[in-house]
């Protein structure tokens, strides 16, 4: 016992309750799901084979990837603009911007999706306003298609894109940029050749973060897609709750899980993960 105590730090006793909880009630069933993906309904790689044989599965897979990519590019681009403006303005203006950003970050996803529903519907406010102004003759279809899903998702993801970029931009040594200007580079040369490369870690980190979050996104695609835009997460829920096919759902969950873990691994090469999640050390 004393030998054991010498090897095991007493701090682990404080970690143990949550560690055991996660191992038993979270990791356990996830491993079980991975196991199901190669055993249900029959042992083998049949579930994974379906991905290549079934047209509908393949389409859902590509829809998901496409929407995630566009969301990532869109929200990181817009987030970069916000983060850049925040770093390069007065302290007071910056705190106002941060407040707006955090308020939108905190407003419930359901409330935001509901608002988009009212704004973007066939007889929604945007269409009514545009028609009233005489800009369009027929209502634009914003919903039940990828456009609506993309608007909702990018809107949701922008705050997530800003935060890692902000951390990165704040850590830059502005003297480097001044040196570039003093050596005769123009403003845009300095931006493209010095500033942008220096913010690559932030761009990579926020892109991967957004991609990971979009991959499993459920609420917005389900509501704004209106059953027309099927992404993996919604498909999984249909498989489980309606058709009760654990095998296919488990296979898709397995793919998603490996994708997420692989991206986390790449992300950890570019940036300390704890800084992305606002943690310590």
């Amino acid at each position, binding site marked *: 016992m004393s030998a054991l105590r010498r090897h095991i730090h007493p701090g682990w006793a404080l*970690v143990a309750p949550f*560690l055991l909880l996660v191992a038993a009630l979270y990791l356990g069933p*996830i491993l079980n799901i991975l196991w199901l993906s190669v055993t249900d309904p029959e042992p083998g790689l049949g579930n994974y084979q379906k991905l290549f044989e079934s047209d509908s599965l393949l389409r859902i897979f590509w829809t998901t990837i496409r929407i995630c990519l566009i969301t990532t590019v869109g929200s990181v681009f817009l987030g970069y603009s916000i983060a850049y403006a925040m770093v390069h303005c007065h302290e007071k203006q910056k705190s106002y911007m941060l407040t707006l950003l955090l308020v939108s970050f905190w407003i*419930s996803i359901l*409330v935001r999706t509901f608002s988009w529903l009212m704004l973007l519907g066939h007889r929604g406010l945007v269409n009514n306003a545009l028609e009233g102004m005489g800009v369009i003759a027929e209502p634009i279809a914003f919903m039940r298609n990828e456009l609506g899903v993309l608007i909702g998702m990018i809107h949701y993801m922008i705050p997530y894109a800003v935060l890692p970029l902000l951390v990165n931009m704040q850590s830059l040594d502005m003297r480097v940029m001044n040196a570039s200007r003093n050596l005769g580079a123009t403003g845009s040369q300095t931006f493209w050749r010095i500033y942008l490369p220096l913010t690559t870690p932030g761009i990579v980190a926020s892109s991967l973060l957004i991609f990971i979050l979009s991959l499993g996104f459920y609420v917005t695609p389900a509501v704004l897609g209106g059953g027309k835009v099927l992404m993996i997460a919604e498909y999984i829920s249909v498989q489980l709750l309606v058709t009760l096919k654990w095998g296919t759902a488990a296979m898709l969950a397995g793919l998603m899980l490996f994708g997420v873990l692989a991206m986390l691994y790449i992300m950890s090469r570019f940036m300390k993960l704890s800084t992305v999640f606002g943690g310590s050390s």
Partner: protein
Amino acid sequence: MKTGLFSHFNRAGAWVLLMFLVTPALIAIPVSLTPKRFLSMPKGELSLRHFEKLFSSPEWMSSFFQSAVIGVSTALLATALGTLCAIGLWRVSSKYSEVVRAFLLLPLIIPQIISAMAFYRLWIPMGIIDSYIGLILAHTILATPMVLITVSASLANFDPKLEQASKNLGASNWTTMRRVILPSVKPGVFAGALFAFILSWDEIVVTLFISKFSVYTLPRRMWNGIRENTDPTVAAAAVVLIAITILAFAFSAYMSRRNASKDTA
């Protein structure tokens, strides 16, 4: 750097974007005041009938109550587990503890749909599906990593010599924990508790899988309302949620400002 035309242009763009982030959610406010029976913008007169309906509806009220119970229980449990865990990892501080920390943050980053599957899979044989205990346990596992992050951030600023000093002065482990470590990580603990509550209060994906009839949280009821998309009571509920969010935000901003001024004083 350059304060040229581009910078000004970009700053204006950033303000427009930030407005784009906040304003769409506010559309629920006028819609909730419509006098009509269906979702519409009010024209001329305003009415509070949908708020009246919301607050006199036993279904909505029971959902508010259930969400509050689950949120508070989750916040308490997650704060206790997460604080202990953060202090433990901070004291161990080895390469193993960093691996364990990364592992324990996984519930936060693994897509919620996978978490939902996992809980659904296990909660059925455990017989805790569609029960308070099932939801509280699931939300606690998802929310504790938040507390772990905020408390760890507080601990990063804590001087370990203070712990040594306390022990050298004869305090026991327990006294040191209670009188030295916990008071100095208090901001992180409070922030973590608040985040944990919000996470649970707002959680829909896992809740959709593991609740059916007997537990019907507020997001669950909103989800149904959104899918039916006719009843303006949902808009009234959305306004209440926005108000609560802004209150919680103001409270946390106030707390962090108070803590900051205490540090400088």
